[in-house]
């Protein structure tokens, strides 16, 4: 019995990482209807930049690199959207998607050039092995618990931003009707760039947390992208809380599957994803009909 509880507990912790992967993807899709194929690669890029920043600054903890990484990635997202992706928006929805596909290839090869194909890891020190004992011989790691907290807080912040601030209101209005939002005085190019910048902030955080938890290399991005996609789709497109739930469900599916056989971990995640896609094609918590 304890084994099962442990699996589910670990699944929740693993799912928190997936929700972290998916938060930015969900925001960008919800606001711009853009699927960013390079999302996973940007997370890997963030992890590598954090590694590099730690090397040159001598920061003891990779979390400290976030001070520089967050504004940097915001800027990357803003400029990328404003200069490259916005002009590609229009009648053809495939065009911006193809651009992100190209970015994915560029980032992977750029990282191979700059950091070689070696597997890397961020070192979190004692935090990585610290754990809290629970009754019944169970234990949860402090780092996974922290990840869960940060993940939930980030989704909550995004939700608050979208529904309680002027920026969020304008983002939702622009998402609903681009040209009418322009009539209201909304500079839609700037607004989309802001959304992309905010998504990149979540990417920076995801990069650091994932880099401490697991090893990564230049081509890890697409694997991480799959989990992010599945979390977004399980939760329902455009719903942020749904994305958090989707991440947790995916994580739990993987860890309980792994109890049967370690080889089943990824497979059972994908199967649960497929089952949910068949049973509720719009995800578990779809945004109200528009």
């Amino acid at each position, binding site marked *: 019995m304890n084994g099962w509880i442990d699996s589910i507990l670990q699944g929740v912790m693993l799912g928190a990482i997936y929700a972290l992967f998916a938060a930015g993807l969900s925001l960008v899709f919800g606001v711009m209807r853009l699927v960013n194929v390079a999302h996973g690669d940007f997370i890997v890029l963030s992890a590598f930049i954090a590694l590099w920043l730690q090397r040159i600054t001598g920061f003891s903890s990779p979390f400290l690199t976030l001070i520089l990484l967050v504004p940097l990635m915001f800027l990357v997202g803003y400029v990328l959207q404003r200069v490259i992706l916005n002009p590609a928006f229009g009648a053809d929805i495939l065009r911006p998607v193809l651009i992100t596909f190209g970015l994915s290839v560029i980032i992977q090869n750029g990282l191979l050039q700059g950091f070689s194909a070696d597997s890397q890891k961020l070192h979190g020190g004692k935090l990585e092995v610290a754990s809290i004992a629970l009754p019944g011989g169970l234990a949860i790691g402090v780092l996974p618990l922290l990840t869960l907290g940060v993940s939930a807080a980030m989704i909550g912040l995004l939700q608050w931003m979208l529904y309680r601030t*002027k920026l969020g*209101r*304008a983002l*939702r*209005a622009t*998402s*609903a*009707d681009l*040209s*009418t*939002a*322009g*009539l*209201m*005085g*909304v*500079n*839609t190019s700037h607004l989309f760039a802001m959304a992309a910048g905010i998504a990149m902030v979540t990417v920076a955080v995801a990069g650091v947390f994932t880099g401490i938890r697991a090893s990564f290399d230049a081509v890890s991005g697409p694997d991480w992208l799959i989990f992010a996609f599945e979390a977004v789709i399980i939760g329902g497109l455009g719903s942020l809380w749904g994305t958090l739930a989707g991440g947790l469900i995916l994580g739990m599916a993987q860890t309980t599957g792994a109890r049967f056989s370690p080889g089943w971990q990824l497979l059972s995640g994908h199967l649960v994803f497929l089952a949910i896609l068949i049973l509720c094609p719009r995800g578990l918590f779809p*945004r*109200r009909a*528009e």
Partner: protein
Amino acid sequence: MNLLSVSKLNAYYGDFQALFDVDFHAHPGEVIAIIGANGAGKSTFLNAIAGNVTGRGNSITFAEEAISGLRSWQIVSRGIALVPEGRRLFSSLTVEENLLMGAYANTKDAWPLTHIYETFPQLKLKAKQSALSLSGGEQQMVAIGRALISNPLLLMCDELSLGLAPMVVHDIYETLTTVRERGVTLIIVEQNVRQALAFADRVYCFQEGRVSLTGRAGELKPEDVSRAYFGLAGAA
């Protein structure tokens, strides 16, 4: 002194030319109606002024400033608001959020929300509802309120009465009367010619992208109007 003057405006959708050398002007405080058949270019004209359709040449001047090259989001803050055809409310936003969007550009000069609710009391009761849950007339009030909240010098309304019951249309024009009394310049595109002639100071009639007739509302002869409207010589 003109608040708005337009000279030789040409507008295009791709290769299709929708407006041909349109000359137009509006004095401060004036109420102007634009009439014309479907496809005559009335909506295109309003959208060209609002910056949604790009005209060619530097031919639109508002409050002594050339605004032709500006984007729609830059034009709002100059004091021009458009109530678009079909209302175009933001479906995923509440009534109140829709109204607040109107104040996005010039928060400083904007009306307070309470002002809008005094003008449209029934909207206050439904402030938290989704904008699309309202009746057609109420939705039109939201669309007008959303434009008014930016405190515009020029308010342009596109097909306000389309699809609304006569009683509701009456109420909406009553509201516009209070708006005009406040000194706001109005340009109204209206299908109902009688309504337009009764409400406006001056009338422009559009036909196939050109101004076919213009004059003071009280001085136009019905046969001239119908000729300008339908383009049939001698039709009455």
